[in-house]
């Protein structure tokens, strides 16, 4: 998630004509019936979701964009909760009047994921069965569970078909999940710095983060809501995560081997190097706004993510998708490198779907998607303009019929001539 640098660059860069959505409020909606049946087989009820909206829903209800946040994000995408606030929402660079997700044109929605700790039902919420926080009794979730919960919210908001779903990192995975789960309820997808399946390396980093939390004595098997929280464990987990969000080059440029508050090495285990100080600061500030159990549940949900799960191939798993896609990766992102995005893109192409892939030059690593980036903004806004035009054309049945015909021929031609792609 956003670093201090994110914030400073964001403050320094004012996109031409773009400004803030201003003051916003988090809303909340709870559903019980029908209850949410999770992938693990358990039932979660009631389900509360915190969400924010920006802009106006058009009378045709065809301009809604659902943003999915990443691991440590929340519903507060853009603007400020209070006038004196210093820091805007986590994607304020992208969402607002005149910005890539232009709130003068689009109705933007973002909800906190279930399992989270920022207003939606999660392990720190009260379990109605016991009257105490769920803690470890909270059921294990998948990203699909989170997506299905948000589909209820979209229905509640009276939206039949979204213009687009979007997100970076974990948010991008949820956007992909939405397109195969609810292919008729979305027209376009903008998937940024993401992947179609989590690799062993990512699972490994998540597991180390979880072990850090679970080996903190204050964790107490997840039952810590009456006493001290496993803050040091969570801080270490965040520090590990943070390393994966930055690039080697960026770290070198930002910190090098510079020392913190001293001129010479002092041969002890204090905070000698600037990079150590930075990571400790990131870890310590994270524990003030995040729940350790939520970190466990959400990273676990990420680990389960594999679009091809239950299918013979990634290509097959995308057969149900109908959307048009914009997939974006960043050159220095080694957490979800371009090669993984390309694998996704080629699977989309093999299904005859309208797909655009863009690999943006950036030194900022995985975090690049949260930083102001003209290339990113231009691509997203251009893509959305055409996506909306096409969505409105699609209301014309003739166009739709012809397009389906062409698309079908793109799919079948290969299938009949050869078993599959080479």
């Amino acid at each position: 998630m956003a670093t201090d640098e994110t914030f400073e660059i964001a403050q320094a860069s004012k996109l031409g004509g773009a400004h803030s959505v201003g003051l916003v409020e988090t809303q909340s909606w709870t559903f019980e019936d029908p209850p949410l049946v999770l992938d693990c087989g358990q039932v979660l009820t009631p389900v509360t979701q915190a969400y924010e909206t920006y802009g106006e829903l058009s009378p045709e209800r065809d301009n809604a964009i659902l943003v999915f946040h990443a691991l440590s994000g929340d519903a507060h995408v853009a603007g400020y909760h209070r006038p004196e606030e210093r820091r805007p929402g986590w994607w304020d660079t992208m969402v607002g009047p005149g910005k890539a997700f232009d709130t003068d044109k689009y109705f933007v929605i973002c909800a906190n994921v279930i399992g989270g700790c920022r207003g939606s039902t999660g392990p720190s919420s009260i379990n109605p069965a016991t009257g105490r926080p769920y803690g470890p009794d909270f059921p294990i979730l998948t990203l699909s569970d989170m997506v299905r919960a948000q589909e209820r919210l979209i229905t509640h908001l009276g939206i039949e078909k979204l213009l687009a779903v979007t997100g970076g990192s974990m948010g991008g995975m949820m956007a992909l999940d939405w397109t195969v789960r609810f292919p008729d309820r979305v027209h376009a997808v903008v998937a940024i710095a993401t992947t179609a399946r989590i690799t062993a390396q990512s699972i490994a980093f998540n597991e180390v983060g979880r072990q850090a939390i679970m080996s903190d004595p204050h964790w107490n098997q997840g039952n810590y809501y009456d006493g001290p929280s496993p803050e040091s464990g969570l801080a270490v987990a965040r520090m590990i995560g943070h390393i994966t969000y930055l690039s080697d080059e960026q770290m070198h440029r930002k910190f090098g081997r510079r020392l913190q508050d001293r001129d010479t090495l002092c041969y002890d285990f204090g905070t000698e190097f600037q990079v150590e100080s930075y990571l400790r600061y990131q870890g310590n500030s994270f524990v003030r706004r995040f729940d350790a159990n939520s970190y466990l549940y959400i990273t676990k949900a990420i680990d389960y993510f594999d679009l091809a799960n239950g299918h013979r191939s990634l290509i097959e798993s995308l057969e149900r998708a109908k959307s048009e896609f914009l997939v974006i990766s960043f050159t220095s992102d080694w957490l979800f490198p371009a090669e993984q995005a390309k694998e996704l893109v080629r699977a989309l192409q093999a299904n005859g779907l309208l797909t655009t892939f863009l690999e943006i030059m950036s030194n900022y690593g995985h975090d690049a998607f949260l930083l102001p980036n003209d290339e990113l903004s231009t691509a997203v806004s251009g893509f959305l303009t055409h996506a909306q035009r096409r969505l409105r054309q699609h209301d014309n049945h003739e166009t739709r019929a012809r397009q389906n015909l062409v698309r079908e021929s793109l799919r079948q031609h290969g299938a009949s001539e050869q078993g599959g792609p080479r």
Partner: protein
Amino acid sequence: MSWTSPPRETKRRLDYELISELVPHYSRILDLGCGDGQLLADLMNNKNCEVRGIEIDQAHVRNCIQRGLPVYHGDMLEGMQHYRDGSFDLVILSQTLQQASDPVRVIHAMLRVGQRAIISFPNFGWWHTRLQLLLTGRMPRHRLLPYEWYNTPNVHLCTVRDFRALCRQEGLEVLHEIFVAPPARRVGPFLANWRAGLAIFELRNRS
């Protein structure tokens, strides 16, 4: 590779109208090295084609997105890899074959994903090129070959006769040949290897 961009814009216009003529309405088109997407946008808007592009240059990809074109940012062989056999009616390669590291592989890949291929290239047998080399003794340099020997992306230049020989060798059937004498005059097949600065071939696999 941004240094390849400006020359390509101007070169492009020379052949893209002629290529357009070869494209039937409602075709499925893949354009390799589609540049800023001018040709694809034209085919999509005027001929109702279903279009896809592959382009390596980030600035070009940005322009394609602004035109609403689906484009793959990356290498052309890599970008064709997952398209199923015969996905396209036509695969277009405009003045980029000579820049490919393995042109024969590119042509075969084009004719795997496409029924037919349209390939245009600067003809190294053009009298202008021959004369420059003969008279000045230096590497030819003109509007179709605007680079110095040390910075040219053109690593596989060929003549019309070379290309025809390759087609025979690889079992490719030539459906159309179009020859252009710069600036934009169409010439017939007579002495084409001397007269044409630019050649456009439409090919398919000999069945």
